[in-house]
């Protein structure tokens, strides 16, 4: 089975190469349409026209667009995305510095979304046929109508401002040190043995992760419920019932396992979107991740940085999809052969 999964991952990654090429070309073209001159922006305002011209030549901006793209791409493949205009640092290193925080947030949010989705889906299904079913269904549509950034603001207001029980700015209390080993704050705090930092980081993670988890669970909930409905029409459920198995065991032992597959497909798509959903949540909670950096870059038209972050998001989505597809193969015996 491992070989099949490896083959699938290899195939998916291979298929991702042309996609990423086109995506990077698109990214490059869109940003070249900008009415800003990167050469002039990277020089002080006192620069002369001649200096700007020289800089343009140095940056390759005087060459034809396709040639510029090839140069940019070969640099990017060597990990060189150019220098951020506003920070004056390598765009690649800025991304590398903020990516772990975003991954940490997205990871925590995915766990929460999966738990809420699973629990909610089972609850929705359990309520079938009762008078409460219509209400629950209605509520789930309403929940579906609260995107992550509204959840972020609502939770910030309720738990941060009104009840004042949880922190809502940054990744850790400002008076605590931020150890740096792997870049993942939670892991680093444990590595250096600072439990206070770890606890503070956890508390700071709760609201943003909860906002994302709540926003992305209703869709999972609803798909799990409808998959369970489909599964319950199958003969083996009837047979399990005839064998006298308790309803609970039928649901959790037989039905859930089979309903998990279609749910997983959707969850994979959702997790891809969730990863980019971190952007707004990070902005709302001033969380020092890639999303905040992106908004900074976008506001300042910092082209090299926008390109680097944009590509990173695409790679992340493609990777998440690949992982979900392999999980699908692992869980689905039908796909394991050949």
């Amino acid at each position, binding site marked *: 089975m491992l070989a099949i999964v490896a083959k699938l991952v290899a195939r998916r990654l291979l298929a991702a190469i042309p*996609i990423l090429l086109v*995506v990077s070309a698109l990214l490059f073209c869109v*940003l070249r349409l900008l009415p800003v001159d990167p050469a002039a922006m990277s020089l002080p305002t006192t620069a002369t026209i001649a200096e700007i011209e020289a800089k343009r030549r140095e940056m390759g901006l005087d060459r034809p667009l396709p040639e510029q793209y090839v140069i940019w791409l070969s640099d990017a493949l060597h990990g060189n995305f150019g220098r951020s205009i506003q920070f004056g640092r390598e765009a690649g290193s800025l991304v590398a510095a903020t990516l772990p925080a975003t991954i940490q947030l997205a990871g925590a949010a995915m766990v929460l979304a999966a738990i809420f989705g699973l629990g909610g889906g089972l609850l929705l299904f359990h309520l079938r046929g009762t008078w409460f079913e219509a209400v629950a269904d209605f509520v789930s549509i309403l929940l579906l109508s609260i995107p992550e950034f509204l959840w972020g603001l609502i939770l910030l207001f309720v738990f941060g401002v009104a009840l004042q029980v949880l922190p809502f700015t940054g990744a850790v209390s400002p008076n605590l040190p931020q150890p740096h080993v792997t870049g993942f704050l939670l892991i680093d705090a444990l590595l250096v043995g600072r439990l206070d930092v770890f606890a503070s980081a956890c508390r700071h993670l709760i609201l943003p992760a909860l906002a994302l988890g709540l926003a992305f669970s209703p869709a999972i909930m609803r*798909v799990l419920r409808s998959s369970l409905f489909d599964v319950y029409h199958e003969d083996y459920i009837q047979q399990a019932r005839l064998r006298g198995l308790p309803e609970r065991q039928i649901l959790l032992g037989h039905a859930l396992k089979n309903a998990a597959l279609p749910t997983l497909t959707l969850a994979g798509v959702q997790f891809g979107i969730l990863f980019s959903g971190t952007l707004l949540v990070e902005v709302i909670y001033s969380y020092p991740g890639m999303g905040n950096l992106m908004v900074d870059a*976008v506001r300042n038209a910092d082209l090299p940085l926008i390109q680097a972050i944009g590509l990173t998001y695409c790679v992340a989505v493609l990777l998440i999809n690949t992982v979900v597809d392999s999980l699908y193969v692992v869980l689905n015996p039908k796909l394991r052969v050949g």
Partner: protein
Amino acid sequence: MAGSLLRALGSPRVLLALAMVLIIGVCAVFAHFLAPHDPAEQNLLSILTPPAWAPDGDPSFPLGTDSLGRDVLSRLIYGARTAMLVAVFASLGAMIIGTVLAHISGYFGGAVDWLIGRLVEVWMSFPPVILSLILMVGLGVGLDRVILAIVLVDWTRFCRVLRSEVLIVRRHDYVAAARLLGFSHWQTIVREVLPATLPLLITLFSLEMAIAVVVEAILSFVGLGVGPNQAAWGQMIADARQYVYQSPWNLLLPIFAIFFAVAAFNLLGDGLRRTLDVRLAETGH
């Protein structure tokens, strides 16, 4: 089709949703008459006043004022106009591009289908929020730019779902019969295939309006939306965030407005999906 649309009107969910849409629609269309103040008018002498029913409330500002002394109710009403303009035109644009490509792709198949399929795949590998932000950098702020950005991002939603529907419809005998009767490909698509995909199209359109409202709010929130001269809910939230301790109302009201609009379109879409019997795999959008 007309019959099933009428039947949809019998569903309480669709009726409730339509009533909600109507409220927002009336605000949007008649903003000029409904708003007690000019949404941009600043009253620097009465900033951050609470709603009229609060102890310090001022009856001339029913829902209070923001940090520049602008009337919150008026800004909410004009924000509805912004949200509706974006929702209607962005969804129309995305629907037209997506539908045309989906029908071409599903009907003709072959190389065209492959090409459009790959195009959708590339587009979908871009997270929508990221793509719309990048587009806004390139396009600049403004109502028309927001609409264009959403169209350019979201046509894939229509294209992907409709294409598989066209593939099913195409196999029906009446489509082959139309060809035998001498219909051109174009006539066959417009008169035979398109009507069959219409229920799905209407449902998707409603769900897309919900998405467009959210995207507009997000872009305005980040400061890359309709621009500072136009009242927008996302912008109101961004402003209110800085004064959340002094004036929580300013934050909660636009949040509720966005939720109300998105819920209206989601309920409408869900109600239509049920009554029009649309086979729409739940995407959760």
